[in-house]
């Protein structure tokens, strides 16, 4: 891992998080912790017409990587159908963050928001995580 992990984009999203906060009466929500550091992250979603994500917010405390990842992720899935959001994969997210090689420890920080998003969607659908999503 090198210092340019902390690219402008990460620092910018960290210092100016998008979609940070809470929603009133969200249709879906979920929370999880990163056991490595104890960081907590919550996602809340309001659905719009044809099961599209109308509004999404996250809150919690975390490192620059997880906070930036949460911001970027919420921006990317906003307006998507929940089925498409369910299928959203980690490569896309890491690509958007510009950090493909995080290593096995820090990648958990980057993927926590995705895991929480999926937890929210799966539990909304009355399912438990399946396939690759179980290894997030």
């Amino acid at each position, binding site marked *: 891992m090198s210092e340019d992990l902390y690219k402008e984009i990460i620092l910018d999203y960290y210092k100016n998080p998008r979609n940070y906060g809470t929603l009133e009466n969200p249709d879906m929500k979920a929370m999880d912790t990163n056991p490595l550091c104890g960081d907590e992250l919550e996602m809340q979603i309001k659905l719009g017409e044809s099961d599209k994500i109308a509004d999404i917010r996250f809150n919690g405390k975390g490192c620059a990587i997880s906070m930036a990842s949460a911001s970027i992720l919420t921006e990317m899935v906003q307006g998507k159908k929940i089925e498409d959001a369910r299928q959203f994969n980690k490569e896309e997210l890491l690509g958007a963050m510009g950090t493909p090689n995080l290593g*096995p*420890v820090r990648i958990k920080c980057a993927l926590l928001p995705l895991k929480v998003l999926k937890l929210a969607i799966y539990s909304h659908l009355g399912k438990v995580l399946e396939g690759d999503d179980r290894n997030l």
Partner: protein
Amino acid sequence: MIKGSLTLDPKIIRQDFPIFQQAVAKPLVYLDSAATSQRPSKVIDAEMEYYQKYNSNVHRGVYRISVEATEAYERAREKVARFINARSPKEIIFVRSTTEAINLISQTWGRTNIQTGDNVLLTEMEHHSNIVPWMMLCKEKGASLRYLEVDDDGFLSLDQLDSSLDNRSKLLAFTHASNVLGTINPAKEMIRRAHDKGALVVLDSAQTTPHMTTDVRDLDCDFMAFSGHKMLGPTGIGILYAREEILDRMEPFLYGGDMIKEVHKDSARWNDLPWKFEAGTPNIAGAIGLGAAIDYINGLGIDQIRAHERAITSRALDMVQSIPGITVYGPKDPDKRAGLISFNIKGVHAHDTASILDTHNVCIRAGHHCAQPLMEKLGVPATTRASFYVYNNNEDIDMLIHGIEAVKGVFKL
């Protein structure tokens, strides 16, 4: 295959094992691999490399060497999973030994699932590690312990298995191969019959996973336990395998760091599998060494290892049995036994036999082999046991025979 010719070449293999390269007056004849195996350089080097190049704790470190240690530790888990054909590395829990693995099952799954009036079925050929945990659990719970008998040829009866299982039989726990008789039990068939009656199965594979293909999906066992130190790996590392849905429902065993997601002053949430069962700093070097042992075994080929041991065992059986005054225990057919032979010399206690063999540099085990109920059944206080692995060769057997003759000489038999 020509009698006496071997699938693997022990001369070449022995070069991989530093202990056989020591300059000593007499060569080491190591015939106690069922107790613990020797370790090849690759295993020792893998541990050293960890200590010398990326020594650090796993899981929680952000810095490079800790990431390397975490990856090596988890890679070892994947190697174990592939080696026994588990569905996922989540089904592989690192423990200290077979013994700890079985205690883990009895103290978590057992405490929750065994109730008053239930019964647990064992066999008369179990190792103490697969008896005493169940004895104590049954005592605590008011459940009963049953034993499948061993017949005169060293076999279990499948009929008796069926008749011993009833609707209060919650568990069958048995060894894949006896560490005294050598008997290889028909595990897949026994597991099928136990499942038919609704019992779960613990397979003690301490004596088989090192020596022959172990496929947990084909066997369909619910739990399995084995030790790294018997399969060319380091001491202090062993494996508990269990099906993921069982592990998911099980309570943790030890509590502390790494097995938790969250701790508050009066509550805690457990970590995901497999870490939920690995509290505290694990034996990192040991796991990495075990991974290297599996690589080494895969390099030789587990089927080749089995064939090699079968050939050695067959020859040893023939030669030992032909000595007057010797009793050999267990199956006579080398296809039905693991690579070990227990015997006694009439008029000589097993300990004395082992002591005199030691003067010939032949390392052999004497005692009850942690299988006292079986000793009672055989009607002997102890036996001597020679056990084989990849590095043993025909000369080792010759030395054993020579040693036995010497014992008879000392005792003027």
